[in-house]
């Protein structure tokens, strides 16, 4: 046991740069993450821009009641959860699989090329990705042309006109855009595994598959757990741009997410209160999810956030 150190000037001088940056970051966090929370007051008011936060009428939980009696809101919760979970599972698994496969590549140069190409889509904005998707999946697009050519279908499929295609398209787009990027962190984790473990495994007669199963995967397990925890909190951030840009009247029942709902009622229809209420709901659910999953991780003795 070391004795608890008391504050002393020498330490302070040594660490003054660190302390300075800590202060800056704290101030930044306070201004940009905590101060805007004052706006949450709107959810409990009948907020009108002309009266502002200070003079709008307080209505208690009425806006929340309104929100949860709206069938459309319950539907967007379902859509958000569904797309969030599908995206989480698919992108998560794909990234790990991709990282491991990449790691198994013998050729250094080939590995670099594949890795670079695969993470480039991450830097495209959604508007471009959705543009590409729209073209590729259109009646005369590459997908329909190929399917027609190989005789899988006799009529072009109108992908954006049917509700059943929408979630898979969104999941596919997410995988295409983010797999390479998400794999980077796992690749880094893999490189930090002690090579002697692989040697030991080889001496024990382990093949490739066994090495992956018994060395690589356990080696990156802490990384996987931490990322999983952080991503669970993001489940309700199932996306805004892609659904907004790909959606249309025909599929609106499955395409609209909480974010789109907030935009539509909060900004477009000018009911800022109900928009804020929906936003609060989303944040609260996210926090609950993180705490719950963190506790589960704690109980199982896994890596955790706090």
């Amino acid at each position, binding site marked *: 046991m070391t004795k608890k150190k008391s504050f002393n000037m020498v330490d302070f001088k040594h660490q003054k740069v660190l302390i300075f940056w800590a202060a800056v970051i704290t101030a930044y966090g306070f201004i940009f993450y905590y101060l805007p929370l004052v706006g949450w007051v709107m959810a409990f008011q009948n907020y009108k*821009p*002309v009266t502002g936060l200070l003079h709008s009428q307080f209505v208690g939980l009425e806006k929340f009641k309104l929100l949860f009696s709206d069938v459309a809101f319950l539907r967007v919760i379902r859509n958000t959860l569904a797309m969030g979970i599908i995206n989480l599972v698919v992108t998560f698994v794909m990234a790990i699989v991709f990282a491991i496969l990449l790691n198994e590549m013998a050729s250094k140069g080939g590995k670099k090329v594949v890795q670079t190409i695969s993470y480039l889509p991450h830097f495209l904005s959604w508007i471009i990705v959705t543009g590409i998707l*729209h073209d590729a999946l259109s009646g005369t697009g590459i997908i329909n042309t190929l399917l027609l050519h190989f005789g899988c279908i006799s009529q*072009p499929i109108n992908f954006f006109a049917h509700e059943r295609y929408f979630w898979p398209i969104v999941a596919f787009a997410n995988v295409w855009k983010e797999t390479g990027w998400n794999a980077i962190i796992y690749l880094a984790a893999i490189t930090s595994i002690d090579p002697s473990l692989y040697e030991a495994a080889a001496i024990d007669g382990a093949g490739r598959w066994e090495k992956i199963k018994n060395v690589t995967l356990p080696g990156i397990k802490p990384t996987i757990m931490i990322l999983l925890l952080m991503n669970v909190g993001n489940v309700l951030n199932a996306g805004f741009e892609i659904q907004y840009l790909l959606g249309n*009247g025909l599929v609106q029942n499955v395409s609209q997410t909480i974010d789109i709902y907030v935009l539509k009622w909060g900004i477009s*229809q*000018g009911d800022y209160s109900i928009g804020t209420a929906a936003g609060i709901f989303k944040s609260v659910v996210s926090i609950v999810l993180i705490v719950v999953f963190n506790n589960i991780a704690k109980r199982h003795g896994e890596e955790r956030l706090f």
Partner: protein
Amino acid sequence: MKKKIVSAVLCVAMLSTMFAGCGKQNGGVVNKDGIKEFTAFFAVPGSEINDDNEIQQLIAEKTGCKVKESWLTGQTAEEAIGTLIAGGEYPDFVDAGNSSVQMYEAGALVPLDDYIDNYPNIKEFFTEQEWDALRQSDGHIYWIPQFSNIYGEERACVHNDEAFWIQARVLEWAGYPKVETLDEYFDLIESYNEANPTMEDGTENIPYTILCDDWRYFCLENAPQFLDGYPNDGSVIVDPDKLEIIDYNTTPTAKRYFQKLNEEYKKGIVDPESFTQTYDEYIAKISSGRVLGMVDQWWDFAYNGEDAIKAAGLDEQGCQYVPLPITIDKGMKNQWHNSGGVQNVSAGLAITTSCQDVEGALQFIDDLLGQDIHDLRFWGVEGEDYLVDDNGLYYRTPEMRKQASDTAYKASHLCTYSYFPQYIGTSRDGKNAMRAEEQEGEFFDGLSEPIKKCFEAYGVKTYVEMLGTTPAPGSWYPMYTYSSTLTTSTPGGVAWAKMGEIKHQYLPKVVMSEDFEQGWKEYMKVYKECKPEDFISEMQTELDRRMEEAAKYE
């Protein structure tokens, strides 16, 4: 040491970009040439002109003012305006479209009625009755509708409204038949497409497409009112005798119209991408000349689609569009075209509370309405963009016409200030039209051969004559100027928003359905759940109010 300097420089650069956004000043800032600069935002898509635009510079020299215009990009009008209101900082001028009332309710607009009397050109823009129609609930006037204001005699050549359009080549092939009903229209398209499935270069035709993107879905949904012989009240039909609101979504005609679309969809005549295409994709199709027919507003496709057809030389193949006087049955009166201007009281050019120099801003609007500036805006520079003959009539050479529809030339030379108040009709000299496209001689000379031939065959001189014209039906007209201001704060507004959502979803479904009767029944069921009666009753109240208001001036 060097590193430190570099990082210091970077720090300063970063900080300065952070604060650059805060230093913005509004309203009549005088630049180094002594010219006041204003900003404007219009909640519609539009194209920005170059910073060194020549006519804008000329207008600036004459008026001492210049306005930097910006337009909607990638958002809906409501989102853009909602964001502005939430931010609380505005450009000097704004046209908020359907969200104008929201701007007013947020206290973002400057009341104009106290100023108007000081500006003769603005004062002259409307009659006393028209100005009064613009008063909001607090009795003040906040915006000036810019369009459809006729000075002197009306000169309409182009049908700037909605119609069933058809390419001239289709009519020519069929020997210019009389096409009056929905059935005849689709029969014609079908038989043409069967005989000529491709264009001259071998690309396949798209027989009929429907634009359905966001608010532009009127191309699908509001044709039933016209098919029944009523004018464009937009959101409802008004019975002119009983002065009663009728819902056009549920009329027998509506059902027949959608049934027809359903049949044509199954036959492959309706473009299967209709309901998922974006506006840009639609315009690309129109521009390619492949689309034989569609319902649309002229202004929605003419300035990009038709101009592209002309630029590609497809006009000589008869790919330009002509309107047809379609009704549901034979022998009905059609009201696709109404004469007289329409004052859209629901939106217009407004000045915001962020503007520091309201007088300067109004003076600029006033100057823009003066005849010489108006000519600069809509004709261009004399000698460069138009010539004057011995009788004082303006005309253009074919080269001038061509350059006037050239995108690059528009951006570098022309400046119409297109969302500022403007006139149509006859110029103050009593001879020329207010704008080039309404000058009869100029209009006719500018037509392509196929269109000229088509007009000759039907014995007409203009697009408008293709349809015939009727005066506006009554002093309530048009009702859409009310429905577009509804917000979800009233039951009628909620119903209106829900109806829109349901129609966006179910109308395409109905058209694509295997079993039309079943699909229509489902649609009617969910439609009734939106409580359209709430909406109808609020529209009725407004109709009654407008009739009462109008009675005061008789």
